[in-house]
């Protein structure tokens, strides 16, 4: 189980990295924490010609906390996030979700940007960013652009990230007084990718509800948001409204299982909502 042979580059600046990424005559692949990419390379499912290691780019690491937003560098590792007490206090939903990501050794390497770019529908971070209404900042040799999390996820491992682009940061609205958050995930074993999960952020009585591991991408429950926004007690009606989601099965079970579990995680995440 060894990867194919490839060339390795470790650019020292974002500009150099983007220059390398812009080569369209070859399969150029960015390496962040490697906690998803290296398994896929070992399986030979990903076969880079050039591997561009982003771990030398200090400019992509770390967070800035503003009055109502935090900007998190793409190369910030989960363990850096978790140990940043101020950031965790301002992003309680992220703080609740992080312990569900794999285990300590993976969190010591894996990065937020890597998880966002991976667009793995079974993982926590994309759904958390969707619930928080985050914005993904992308850069290519030709410049920068921002894409709302709502528009970023397109399908299994598919996102708005275009060839030649890198995720450079994620802008996340921070918690304000009165905001409430809920997170619940069902996994067979601790740290496993979820069987189903829900992340909820409620601001000004308006909830944003994002599900993961129920479809081919993280998805919002729009009707449920509307129903619960109007009446926080009408959970049953909100559960009923989830039929609108395009459920996809996996090895755990078919769409029926996902539909059922989506109701359960919604109910339980909602119950977690603390003012």
């Amino acid at each position, binding site marked *: *189980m*060894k*990867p*194919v*042979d*490839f*060339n*390795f580059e*470790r650019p020292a600046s974002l500009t150099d990295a983007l220059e390398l990424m812009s080569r369209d005559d070859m399969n150029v692949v960015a390496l962040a924490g*490697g*906690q998803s990419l*290296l*398994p896929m*390379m*070992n*399986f030979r499912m990903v076969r880079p010609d050039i*591997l561009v*290691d982003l*771990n030398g780019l200090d400019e992509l690491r770390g967070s800035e906390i503003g009055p109502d937003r935090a900007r998190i560098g793409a190369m910030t590792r989960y*363990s850096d996030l978790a140990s940043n007490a101020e950031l965790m206090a301002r992003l309680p939903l992220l703080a609740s979700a992080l312990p569900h990501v*794999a*285990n*300590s*050794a*993976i969190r*010591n*390497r894996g990065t937020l940007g890597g998880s966002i770019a991976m667009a793995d529908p079974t993982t926590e971070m994309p759904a958390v960013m969707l619930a928080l209404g985050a914005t993904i900042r992308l850069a290519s040799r030709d410049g920068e652009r921002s894409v709302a999390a709502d528009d970023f996820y397109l399908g299994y491992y598919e996102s708005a990230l275009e060839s030649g682009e890198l995720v450079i940061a994620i802008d996340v609205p921070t918690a304000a007084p009165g905001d409430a958050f809920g997170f619940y995930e069902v996994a067979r*074993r*601790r*740290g496993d990718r979820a069987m189903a999960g829900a992340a909820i952020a409620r601001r000004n009585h308006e909830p944003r509800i994002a599900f993961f591991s129920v479809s081919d991408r993280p998805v919002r429950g729009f009707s449920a948001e509307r129903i619960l926004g109007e009446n926080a007690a009408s959970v049953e009606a909100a559960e009923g409204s989830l039929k609108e989601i395009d459920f996809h099965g996996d090895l755990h079970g078919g769409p029926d299982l996902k539909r059922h579990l989506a109701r359960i995680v919604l109910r339980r995440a909602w119950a977690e909502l603390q003012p």
Partner: protein
Amino acid sequence: MSRLHRVTIEINGEQVTASIAARVNLIDFIRTEAGFTGSHLGCEHGVCGACTIEVDGAAVRGCLMLAVQADGANVVTVEGLAGMGRAKNLRAAFLAENALQCGYCTPGMLVSALEYIESGESSDRATIRAHMAGNYCRCTGYQAIVDAIAAVIESGEGA
């Protein structure tokens, strides 16, 4: 063929230099270039934890790092723990509790356990189990491993 990379990694206190292909993972490097065969590969996709080692002080999966990425880094494996006199109490507790059978998982277990103990966490069994959830052991059933970690913490003498 891609070019070779000349890398120098400090492994268990020794500087090891070799020219290698980029695709060589850190564990293969440690085992074949440096000859420290204590760390094992169990799955090569990040799940089993057998390859858990310390890189610049952090417990990481050695199978999910390329050796070229560790150029200039400081790596400690199970041999290094023993050689540098670290985790002595932990090893004694593993022996006393019979926290290993075949011992194939042990090098990774020790590194994960050490990370837990050194972070000052409690001896609560569920918390220990949660932390150790990324290290697979087919032989022991885990209980003796939890016992050993809890015993070290409760002794108050550190790992």
